[in-house]
């Protein structure tokens, strides 16, 4: 075939791209888990972004490849990823495509549970506009690659609700048309790279291909793109055989990727280890989401999240500037969970897995309520608390050694501080709930990052508590009115408690590490200024940044987009142990966009 020839031309440096050809082991291991589609080349694509670092770690390009999209690289990216499926509509309407445009292998759209589908057993839901391109093996690691915007599959909500197949790109429907818009791709790109840099597991964008009319294909990669919802479908359908097949496939991949410990020696041990790992992963992930103010809509379907707690699908993902614990995303027909309810949904995901594992082992599906108080629920709560305790110490600025000391010797003080912190973090306006363009919220009145950033340096200067009025002056958010900030005796008491507990932690570390409180405070001053820096992107900021970049994008070369992305990610680095040098961005080209980006981050820093 002509297509195959065009890929073969690029033999050599880009050999590995040829392995990304639709073939994926899941399709043969669990054939029921997907719908296979023939695909064809999609024309008029333009590569607007390519993630060189990711491509290098996947072995797609050599380590010493220059960070420039050469004509040859451009061609191989388009050959591999600029594709569109030949779907049921095309077949039913006998649409003819040139033989040389049709790709040799089939690509899978995977089936998984989705709460927005009328069928609650996952019989009609899954990848509505994505296909899986295949896998890549490199340095002992296997990567999954999938693409979003590759045409309408039969698993989209539109097909299920209207009981008809759609032509890819049908302008009469939006989400169900199988295409994705370029702003979604940019949003995913910016958000995922920032979160990844800060240690949050997430899908990553490998490439962005732009088409006319603002459409795009977003190519994404991760070490395992399975979600809990892939498994839950079989539990809902009472299909223990396929559930076991899928679970065994998943475990084998994890072992191959060395993300598990030693290979289990028995089936029982394997499933116990699975439950143990998944429980700890989801407890850690939800505690981190809560403390980093990351809103990721978790629900009973186990969608929107990967098995390792990584974020997938950035449509409803937000990073709040403050602890907006009453925010709910409005997805037309329904409201999402809140950031604090994520924990409950994560626990339910674990409960569902416990039901599934029991189903595999006993061959009989029991009611889910039986697993409501099992040992994994307890393990979840225990792990969640441990991470909450560690996270608050990390936020204050304590290094990992100091965190260990305090958790071992001063747990009660840590808990007392967490309680005092939580009182301010959750305090809301008197105004009450308010509507937002994309949901509802009830604004909070304190910015705890600000107080954590400024407090150690103020203590360094005066070596005593600051006044309650000063505390309020620093911690107040832009949502707070004078009324909201009224200093009653209860609040004064809470401020005193906050400061008292803070000092107790400082003194405890000074004593245990044989140093002075001043030295501890100097270290906290430095670390906290990075952890709690003023400039922190929110979902609102990302949306506006994407708009700004998109306006410039026709004039931006992929390398310039890469430079902008690098700038944003560098700005949004909150790890005090990993500070690289300052970028002299003003002297670079595009400094006006960069300054605009900074202004947007600043303007929306307390938002959703």
């Amino acid at each position: 075939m002509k297509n195959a020839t065009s890929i073969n031309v690029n033999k050599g440096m880009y050999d590995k791209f040829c392995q990304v050809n639709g073939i994926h082991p899941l399709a043969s291991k669990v054939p029921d888990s997907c719908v296979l589609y023939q695909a064809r080349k999609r024309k008029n694509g333009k590569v607007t972004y390519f993630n060189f670092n990711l491509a290098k770690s996947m072995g797609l390009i050599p380590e010493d490849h220059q960070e420039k999209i050469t004509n040859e690289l451009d061609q191989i990216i388009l050959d591999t990823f600029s594709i569109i499926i030949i779907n049921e509509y095309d077949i039913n309407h006998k649409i003819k495509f040139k033989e040389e445009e049709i790709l040799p292998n089939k690509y899978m759209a995977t089936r998984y549970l989705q709460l927005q589908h009328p069928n609650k057993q996952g019989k009609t839901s899954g990848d509505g506009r994505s296909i899986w391109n295949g896998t890549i093996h490199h340095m002992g690691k296997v990567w999954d690659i999938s693409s979003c915007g590759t045409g309408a599959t039969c698993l989209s909500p539109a097909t299920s609700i209207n009981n008809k197949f759609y032509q890819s790109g049908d302008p009469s429907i939006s989400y169900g048309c199988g295409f994705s818009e370029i702003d979604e791709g940019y949003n995913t790109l910016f958000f995922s790279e920032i979160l990844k840099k800060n240690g949050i597991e997430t899908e990553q964008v490998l490439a962005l291909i732009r088409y006319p009319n603002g459409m795009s294909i977003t190519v994404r990669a991760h070490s395992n793109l399975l979600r809990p919802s892939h498994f839950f479908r079989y539990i809902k359908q009472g299909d223990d055989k396929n559930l076991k097949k899928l679970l065994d496939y998943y475990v084998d991949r994890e072992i191959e990727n060395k993300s598990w410990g030693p290979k289990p020696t028995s089936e029982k041990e394997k499933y116990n280890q699975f439950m143990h790992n998944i429980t700890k992963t989801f407890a850690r992930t939800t505690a981190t989401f809560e403390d980093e103010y990351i809103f990721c809509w978790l629900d009973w379907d186990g969608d929107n999240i990967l098995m390792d707690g990584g974020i997938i699908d950035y449509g409803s993902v937000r990073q709040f500037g403050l602890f907006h614990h009453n925010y709910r995303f409005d997805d037309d027909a329904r409201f999402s969970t809140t950031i604090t309810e994520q924990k409950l949904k994560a626990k339910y995901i674990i409960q569902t897995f416990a039901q599934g594992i029991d189903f595999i082992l006993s061959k009989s599906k029991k009611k889910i309520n039986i697993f409501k108080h099992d040992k994994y629920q307890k393990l979840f709560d225990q792990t969640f608390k441990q991470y909450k305790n560690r996270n608050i110490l990390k936020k204050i600025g304590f290094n990992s050694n100091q965190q260990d000391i305090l958790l071992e010797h001063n747990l009660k003080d840590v808990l007392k501080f967490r309680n005092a912190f939580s009182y301010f973090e959750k305090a809301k306006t008197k105004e009450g709930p308010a509507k937002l363009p994309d949901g509802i919220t009830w604004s909070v009145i304190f910015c705890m990052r600000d107080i954590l950033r400024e407090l150690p340096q103020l203590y360094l200067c005066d070596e005593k508590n600051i006044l309650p009025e000063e505390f309020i002056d620093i911690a107040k958010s832009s949502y707070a009115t004078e009324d909201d900030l009224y200093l009653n005796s209860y609040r004064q008491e809470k401020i005193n408690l906050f400061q008292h507990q803070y000092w107790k932690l400082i003194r405890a570390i000074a004593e245990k590490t044989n140093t002075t409180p001043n030295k501890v405070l100097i270290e906290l001053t430095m670390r906290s200024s990075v952890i709690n820096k003023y400039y922190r992107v929110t979902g609102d900021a990302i949306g506006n940044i994407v708009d700004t970049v998109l306006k410039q994008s026709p004039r931006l070369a992929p390398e310039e987009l890469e430079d902008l992305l690098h700038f944003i990610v560098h700005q949004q680095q909150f790890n005090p142990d990993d500070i690289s040098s300052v970028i002299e961005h003003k002297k670079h080209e595009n400094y006006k966009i960069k300054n605009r980006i900074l202004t947007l981050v600043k303007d929306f820093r307390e938002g959703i």
Partner: protein
Amino acid sequence: MKLVFYSSGEPKDNLELDKIMLSQMAPTDPQITFIPSESSESEIHFQNFIKQYQKLGVQHFIHMPIDIPIHETMINKAFQGDIIHLSGGNTYYFLHHLKRSNLLGKLKKFVASGGILAGTSAGGIIMTPSITTAGFPTFDCDDNYISLKNLTAMSLVNFEFFPHYKKSKRYDQELASYSKKSRLPLLACPDGTGVIINGDVSMVCGKLSCFYQGKKINFKY
């Protein structure tokens, strides 16, 4: 009046200036306020700043970016200190935000009441009558990307300050040419050098040059 002008350079290059400032001008156990020229990434500069002065025994630091809303509490604490350090960066942007946040007057009062004001590069230029020197030489000048028109600065001294000076023909030509039009002497400081004003005593630290009415005079300490 206590002022310290740093050209810039590595901390070790400025050790002499730091030591003179701390031993001859500052009280024991001083508090230093670090005012960065811009808030973005200033936490990294602040960390380096702390590391530099911690080695010299300083234990009290305040970080106060001025291009973001500033809490009244932080302003009060910042000005209660003994030393205020204005960082390097884009001189136009820095001056614009110092004026916008009404801090120039406060800084002058701070100096008048005995506080030590130090400035590195852009920070030093801002302590002089005008920031015109940030606009040359053409091959290595600050970009006035905010299109600042009023370049009047603090006027704490009656000379102009030119940091990052390199002894070369093209620098000398530009500086000499400028000095012909200026009524004030222009002190050109290579990195690692600086000027100290402690009451009636002024001293230069390192090898620096003065351009005045088209002529160049060299100083050495």
